[in-house]
């Protein structure tokens, strides 16, 4: 029977086909007395052998697809599999206590995770996940309950899961994963951001996906335009989706043709740069090359994720140079790492925080780990001598912070000069405006940097005190809140008064609902994931700047978000219907 679920579409597309439930779930560990310890030990040995084969395969595949660093983790998993401690304890307890292997393994995992956690070394603590992971694999093999491996997917499929951590997401292959549907997550979660850049149609926030379905899943259809998931879709549904898909691709093609021949400007000739946000160098695709005016936000922390140790200066340098060279002379804005918060890399000595979003992340982290920070700045300054690179600092909340990072930047320049290594002595320096305090002192900050980029995702989260990943309050995360719109206005005005550039790089920049408002504020640079570029560029050509200015002023008069939305929607429906009905 067909079942329909609703969620939030975060990366557009329409796909149907086989579904894969990636839900390791909770396994019930059976605990019972055994009669024949020899047989039991043999049974667990063969489960270990199977696990070994699995992990060896994972190691090889990861090595092939992602390189030695990422594969390193499976090497450690393999060693844990042969660990004396585990084997001796297994043998002893099976023989002495006549306990089944599953329960002994479970106890070992519990005991050592507790031990490792009690050391108080948070970096090593992270490794309990590996211990549990390996033991979980053995137990699953004992119980013959396989866990689907994302690296090991043979046929392209639609992935259904409760959630995916960033490191798991970073290993997704767009050729294998045709669509992603998650019970958790939100528009701005990292799964969403990465899915968009990999162009995997994705729906998140599908409530009760795993609570209510009882039907055997034969297949699924994903309409990540309207946010609909069909489990076991009927042939009628597929027919309907096929038609929708054909219509959409026709319209998109029309867009692209029109755009390439058209400069990115309003009807009355105001130039608006549409830039791309990227996470990884290989996202510099045709859309970015032909349709964008450069990279407005390169989130460099993705180079640091899913690795057992940080990338070296040379490794970073190569990546930055590659992007800058490919796009030269277009600008590439490198943002220094925003590690911490929800993007915690596994190798940093990161102390678990009660409230990581308000914790030691981004420049705070960098100022506390200067060596780490300097390595990245060296790579950036060196790369800036080759392409049009600008450097941007995230999470600036005070003038002191800006001065501190600039001081370190100067130190790095002095070091490079002394070492006689070529670098760009005066690259443009900018900051992210994403903390309310930065908005309020934007006029002061503007005196000491070359550009602003407004990070609306965090700005909204911090201004409205809403955790964007908490489904219970996600509806309060509202870009149309008048407070947010006023903050945008303040920031843009401060930049204009100080005669520095200002762009916007949050999700709001890619939402057609806000385009005219943003242009009317005086922003002349919008940065977004590359999939959104064609639509926003098409929209810009239909905007009249003088009208947009008036329209923005009208919007800023609104007292409620409801009012804002109704005006924005009405405007879209009357003025931009042809372009925006697609979303």
């Amino acid at each position: 029977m067909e079942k329909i679920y609703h969620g939030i579409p975060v990366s557009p597309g329409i796909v149907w086909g086989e579904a894969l439930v990636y839900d390791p779930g909770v396994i019930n560990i059976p605990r019972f007395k055994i009669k024949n310890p020899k047989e039991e030990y043999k049974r667990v040995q063969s489960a270990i052998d199977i696990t070994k084969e699995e992990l060896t395969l994972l190691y090889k595949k990861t090595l092939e697809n992602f390189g030695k660093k990422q594969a390193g983790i499976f090497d450690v998993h393999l060693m844990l599999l042969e660990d004396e401690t585990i084997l001796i304890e297994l043998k002893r307890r099976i023989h002495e206590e006549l306990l089944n292997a599953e329960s002994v393994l479970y106890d070992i995992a519990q005991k050592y995770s507790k031990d490792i956690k009690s050391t108080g070394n948070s970096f090593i603590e992270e490794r309990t996940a590996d211990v549990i992971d390996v033991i979980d694999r053995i137990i699953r093999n004992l119980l013959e309950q396989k866990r689907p491996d994302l690296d090991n997917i043979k046929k392209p499929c639609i992935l259904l899961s409760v959630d995916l951590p960033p490191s798991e997401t970073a290993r997704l292959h767009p050729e294998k994963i045709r669509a992603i549907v998650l019970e958790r997550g939100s528009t701005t979660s990292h799964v969403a951001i990465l899915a968009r850049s990999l162009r995997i149609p994705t729906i998140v926030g599908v409530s009760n996906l795993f609570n209510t379905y009882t039907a055997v899943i034969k297949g699924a259809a994903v309409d990540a335009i309207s946010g609909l998931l069909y489990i076991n879709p009927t042939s009628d549904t597929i027919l309907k989706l096929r038609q929708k898909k054909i219509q959409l691709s026709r319209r998109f093609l029309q867009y692209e043709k029109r755009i390439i021949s058209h400069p990115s400007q309003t009807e009355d000739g105001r130039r608006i740069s549409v830039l791309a946000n990227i996470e990884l160098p290989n996202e510099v695709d045709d859309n970015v090359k032909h349709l964008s005016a450069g990279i407005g936000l390169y989130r460099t922390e993705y180079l640091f994720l899913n690795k057992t140790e940080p990338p070296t200066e040379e490794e970073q340098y190569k990546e930055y140079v590659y992007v800058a060279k490919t796009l030269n002379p277009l600008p590439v804005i490198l943002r220094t790492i925003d590690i911490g918060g929800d993007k915690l890399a596994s190798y940093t000595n990161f102390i678990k925080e009660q409230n990581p979003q308000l914790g030691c992340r981004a420049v705070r982290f960098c100022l506390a780990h200067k060596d780490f920070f300097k390595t990245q700045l060296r790579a950036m300054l060196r790369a800036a001598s080759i392409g049009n690179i600008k450097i941007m600092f995230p999470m600036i909340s005070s003038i002191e912070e800006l001065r501190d990072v600039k001081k370190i930047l100067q130190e790095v320049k002095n070091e490079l000069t002394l070492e006689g290594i070529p670098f760009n002595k005066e690259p443009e320096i900018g900051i992210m405006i994403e903390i309310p305090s930065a908005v309020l002192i934007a006029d002061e900050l503007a005196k000491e940097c070359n550009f602003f980029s407004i990070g609306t995702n965090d700005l909204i989260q911090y201004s409205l005190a809403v955790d964007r990943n908490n489904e219970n309050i996600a509806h309060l995360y509202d870009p149309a809140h008048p407070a947010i719109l006023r903050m945008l206005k303040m920031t843009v005005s401060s930049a204009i008064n100080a005669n520095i550039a200002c762009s916007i790089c949050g999700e709001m920049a890619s939402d057609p609902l806000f385009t005219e408002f943003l242009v009317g504020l005086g922003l002349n640079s919008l940065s977004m994931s590359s999939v959104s570029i064609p639509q926003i560029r098409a929209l810009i050509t239909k905007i009249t700047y003088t009208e947009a200015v008036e329209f923005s002023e009208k919007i800023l008069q609104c007292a409620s978000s409801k009012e804002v939305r109704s005006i924005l929607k009405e405007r879209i429906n009357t003025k931009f219907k042809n372009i925006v009905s697609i979303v």
Partner: protein
Amino acid sequence: MNNNRIEKIIKVVNSLGVHARPAAMIVRAMQKYDAHIYLVYNGNRRNAKSVLQILSLGAPKDAEIVAVAEGKDAHSALQELEEIFESGFGEE
């Protein structure tokens, strides 16, 4: 018990401490010796031939670990162990 027992104080020099990859390196190197090899840190004594046990030491940068080896090849085992620690496990 073999009376060939040696002790050495070994310092962790790499910035990330003895995490998973170094633990794997240590085990790989120590497995080829017959001697019993232990690492003592913060009052905990752990088997140097087990990744799991080394991880549960939780030794950060600058930690001073007492390495103990007992057996006929104890001397060469500790020598290699010391070299591995001094190399910072090939990290910074």
